[in-house]
């Protein structure tokens, strides 16, 4: 299933709606990184609220997205990680060190706005 990517101002929002296969995740990564350049996006938000499991491939892909987007001049925020998912992730040692996370979409947008103000 393809993940819809919405453009909202200077930001791109990818809202994952259901469990994704590894191929879907790779496709999401390619699509997001391509659009960061196309729309000259300042920020990327990946909403994972609908995910109730997160495996190592998913975590690695999210990390790759964040690092690649940064190299292309865009800040990434992962939002909506469920409490159970967060707990399972740290227990499995799947960390998102160095990557910004936020409670939900609203928080993620607030963070990116604050970041934009900082830059002026």
């Amino acid at each position, binding site marked *: 299933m393809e993940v819809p990517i919405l453009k909202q101002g200077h930001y791109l929002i990818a809202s994952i709606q259901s469990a994704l296969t590894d191929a879907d995740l790779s496709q999401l990564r390619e699509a997001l990184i391509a659009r960061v350049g196309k729309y000259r996006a300042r920020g990327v938000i990946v909403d994972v609220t609908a995910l109730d499991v997160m495996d190592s491939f998913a975590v690695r892909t999210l990390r790759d997205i964040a690092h690649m987007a940064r190299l292309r001049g865009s800040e990434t925020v992962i939002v909506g990680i469920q409490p159970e998912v967060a707990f399972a*992730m*740290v227990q499995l040692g799947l960390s998102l060190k160095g990557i910004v996370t936020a409670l939900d979409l609203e928080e993620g947008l607030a963070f990116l706005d604050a970041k934009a103000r900082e830059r002026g």
Partner: protein
Amino acid sequence: MKVKDTQATAPLQTQQPTGEDTKGLLRELVAHLRQNRTQLREEWARRITQAKLLTAMTEEEIFAEATSVYDNYVEALETGTFEALQAYARNLSERIIPRGVETHEVVGIVLLLRDVLARSLFGKYHEDFTKLNRILDAYEPAANRIANTVAVGFVQERERIIRQQQEAIRELSTPVLQVRERLLILPIIGVIDPQRARQLTEQLLRAIRTNRAKVVVIDITGVAAMDSNVANHLVQTVEASRLLGATVIVTGLSPEIAQTLVTIGVDLSEMATVGDLQGGIEEAERLLGYKVATLAEPAAPPQPA
């Protein structure tokens, strides 16, 4: 449990006497014990005091308990059924455990009673060695079973109380409190075991979500000791909270805990720590952009004379 089962199915007699024999002998034995009740009971109470057992109870109490234990003991010998004794042992344990009576004391007094009664049997039958042997053959297994029943009853009661208390402690679970908009505090008091640590983390993560918290202050002033397991769990909690977009500040690490953590080499570089709860809340307010100001001018300091 296993001990009791094997005891319950084990035949009362040893090889020599038959079942009928044992019953007759036990009847004789019981008659003897009833006859000398007062004297044996006193002797027993005296030996208890001498052995410095049941120090938590007064002499009158010991004597009263000794009387009823004695009667139940003789009854169990007579009937060969242990249900009544079991119930009595449980009831007794319920009464004396809160008084601080220890397991070794309970076992000790029952064994003392066994010895006192055995001595009196030696005295009675010392002229007829064969008879003494047969009486002892009948008496010893029954007496040992009684000792077993009482000890098991006591330990079971004790374990029941411990389970009950553990339950109570678990129910007094740690609250997650909101002190400002988007600021939670989690005071942790007492011992953290893996189970509680897990429960704490789950509770905290849920609270972060429902309260939309940005900053969490975990205060561990009330935690006496910490090992590497708990420390790692704390690190995991911090990491999981961060995944939900909340910053965690840990406060109140005692000097001992700080030393332990440094000694065992737990990596706490990812963790923001502040000395005490006040400092932690101030830091949290700063992160959230709160500014605390007094409304009026503070009272002037007293002027030196």
